[in-house]
């Protein structure tokens, strides 16, 4: 089991390194986005301190989903997934290989966002930076698998982009980034309980604003880990979609 996962991950890393423009975009875009957000909050730094953890979680979900979703869609549309499925590689190898390959770049992106936000933009935080990274890691694993899963329902890049408002935007509005979940109507609060970003924002806020440890945000972490594991399983099962003709 997982005999070929590292080979697949290595191939994905090779692909992204050879595609220099994509690599540059992966590294530069998060910094540009955070700078624009920072510039839009010049007079109210206290507000940005409060919003920053939620933004970090949201951007991790957004970029992780987008990067993997589009890449995996290409794997399906250019026929390489079919070729992989016809080889001795198992579905578990493919899911894990993709997870490992993209995780490296998603984590790098997340690292850049966190370090840039904390050190360059001088956002105040109280928790430990390594705990922020570990928490973001779990968010990213879920996001990557969500991207692979959703790519099964798109036939081209245009359709994949259409899924962003459907999958990401509702989570942004309901996760507590714009206004507290507790102030929403009951049915919206109920819906938000099923959205991974709600737990990501809550957990990261607790770590960065209130100095809580990973242990203390264990509930959020468990919900996100559950989402990541659940998505991995569903993703594995959905791989044949589009390959079966």
């Amino acid at each position, binding site marked *: 089991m997982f005999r070929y996962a590292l080979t697949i991950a290595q191939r994905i890393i*090779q692909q992204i390194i050879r595609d220099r423009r994509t690599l540059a975009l992966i590294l530069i875009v998060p910094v540009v986005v955070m700078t624009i957000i920072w510039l839009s909050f010049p007079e109210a730094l206290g507000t940005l301190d409060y919003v920053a953890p939620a933004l970090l979680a949201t951007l991790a979900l957004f970029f992780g989903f987008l990067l993997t979703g589009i890449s995996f869609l290409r794997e399906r549309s*250019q*026929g*390489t997934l*079919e070729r992989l499925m*016809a080889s*001795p590689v198992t579905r578990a190898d493919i899911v894990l290989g993709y997870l490992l390959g993209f995780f490296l770049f998603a984590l790098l992106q997340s690292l850049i966002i966190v370090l840039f936000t904390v050190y360059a933009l001088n956002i105040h935080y109280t928790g430990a930076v390594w705990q922020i990274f570990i928490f973001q890691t779990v968010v990213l694993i879920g996001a990557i698998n969500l991207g692979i899963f959703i790519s099964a329902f798109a036939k081209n890049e245009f359709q994949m982009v259409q899924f962003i408002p459907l999958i990401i935007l509702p989570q942004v509005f309901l996760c507590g980034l714009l206004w507290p979940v507790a102030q929403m109507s009951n049915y919206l609060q109920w819906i938000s309980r099923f959205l991974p970003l709600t737990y990501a924002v809550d957990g990261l806020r607790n770590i960065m604003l209130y100095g809580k440890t990973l242990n203390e945000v264990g509930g959020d972490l468990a919900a996100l880990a559950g989402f990541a594991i659940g998505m991995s399983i569903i993703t594995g099962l959905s791989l044949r979609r589009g390959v*079966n003709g």
Partner: protein
Amino acid sequence: MTVNDSAVEVTNASFVYGKLKALDNLSLSAPRGISYGLLGPNGAGKTTLIRLLVGLLKPSTGEVRVLGQTPGGKMAAQIGYMPQQPSLYQELSVAQNIDFFAKIYGLKDKPARARRVEDTIKLVDLWERRGDGINKLSGGMKQRVSLACAIVHNPPLLLLDEPTVGLDPELRAGFWQHFRNLNRQGVTILISSHTMDDAAHCDRLAFIRKGQVIASGTPEELKKATGKPDADLEAAFLHFVRREDKKIV
């Protein structure tokens, strides 16, 4: 001929995509060590049959045996599969693509794999372009890389879905020279095509139409069956099509 003598044995296989019956009770048997052609128009069911043989699809009814086994799983390592579209990683180089497929088909030993990848690149005459990205290659070159990815692990069975489409006559002749060399080494090649030029190179043929084998045999046998001494394979195909149509009427 027993089942064990056959590289590919399909018995009464049917496959349905939604309401479309892509394969309709199809049977065929391809002996080992030859080039076996699946000849038919677009939409005849050739690609569906190859996807069944490679284990990507399972027959709705009937049985499919490849090298004496059910397709899929670990036995996939014994098959070289070349899909209709080149199906390569555009950002990777020629050598990186072939090396990746060598690894996933189980060539673990690094020096041995490097030698095999080098030999395969030379075989498809792309040594000078080994470091170039796939997106910089012409259509014919991509086809050659795709073939290299299918043969790099020295499989005893090759399943090639329209491998010569879009190739110029010189390149097509080169492909067939490779296939003949592989046959001599005992490799069985099952090739789908809709061109009579490919058909003429095959040892045996199955004419496929509307998901069924309407005739099979050697090219000479099929031509002879028309009753006309100067008939070519195109005339033979049309002869069997008309015979089938008469049966329906």
